[in-house]
């Protein structure tokens, strides 16, 4: 990890078109918080990092889903139906 010290109103540049600026520092010690302003191109998403952890956790919970009322399934797109000629290959 690259570690830099910035004062309020100072910024860091990442690559050609990302800027992170320190706008405000509040509090002190463990309660301190920093307000950051971020400029990034439209195609680059900026997220609080906890969001990725929370998403992974929710996905893991979702993987344990039990829904017996929804177990009559068939592959989507009806690929097994008419359209492809010839006999099916034995696997």
């Amino acid at each position, binding site marked *: 990890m690259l570690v830099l010290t910035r004062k309020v109103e100072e910024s860091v540049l990442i690559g050609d078109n990302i800027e992170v600026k320190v706008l405000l520092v509040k509090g002190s010690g463990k309660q301190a918080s920093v307000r950051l302003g971020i400029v990034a191109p439209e195609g680059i998403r900026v*997220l609080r990092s906890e*969001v990725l952890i929370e*998403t992974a956790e*929710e*996905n893991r919970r979702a993987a344990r*889903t039990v*829904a017996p*009322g929804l177990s009559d399934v068939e592959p*989507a797109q009806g690929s097994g139906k008419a359209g492809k000629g010839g006999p099916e290959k034995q696997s």
Partner: protein
Amino acid sequence: MHVVKTSRFGEVRYDPERVIRFPRGILGFEHLCRYILLNCRESDRFKWLQSVEDPTLAFLLFDPSPDFPDYWPPVNSTDLAELDLPSLESAIVMCIATVTGPPSYATANFQAPLLINVSSRLGKQVVTGLPSYKTKQAIFHSALVQKTG
């Protein structure tokens, strides 16, 4: 045709040409990239995304649009490019559902929907990070209640 011996549905035969690839995997399961989409005969609001690499892994997917017509996740140009999508309208947008207790407690992750391009067979989970969309959005659908008898 290939076969995957799934834990939920038994043997499922599928056309390997229909496998959907998630190049980045799905968060929490980054090592698994190949899935097939299964329709539910009981309900067209739900589909399953079944891993063809891990037969025990499947995600129940919920279509938000009928109940949430204004749901429009902020997808960016990188998301579209990664999936070869000309626009969001060409994609299937579905939310991963969590049903681990009574059906009335079912939720779906509206904050991080799945985006699937069926024609290019590519998919990704778009983590929007938007606080206005819930990771645990309550959903209820009669199909979740198993009919008895």
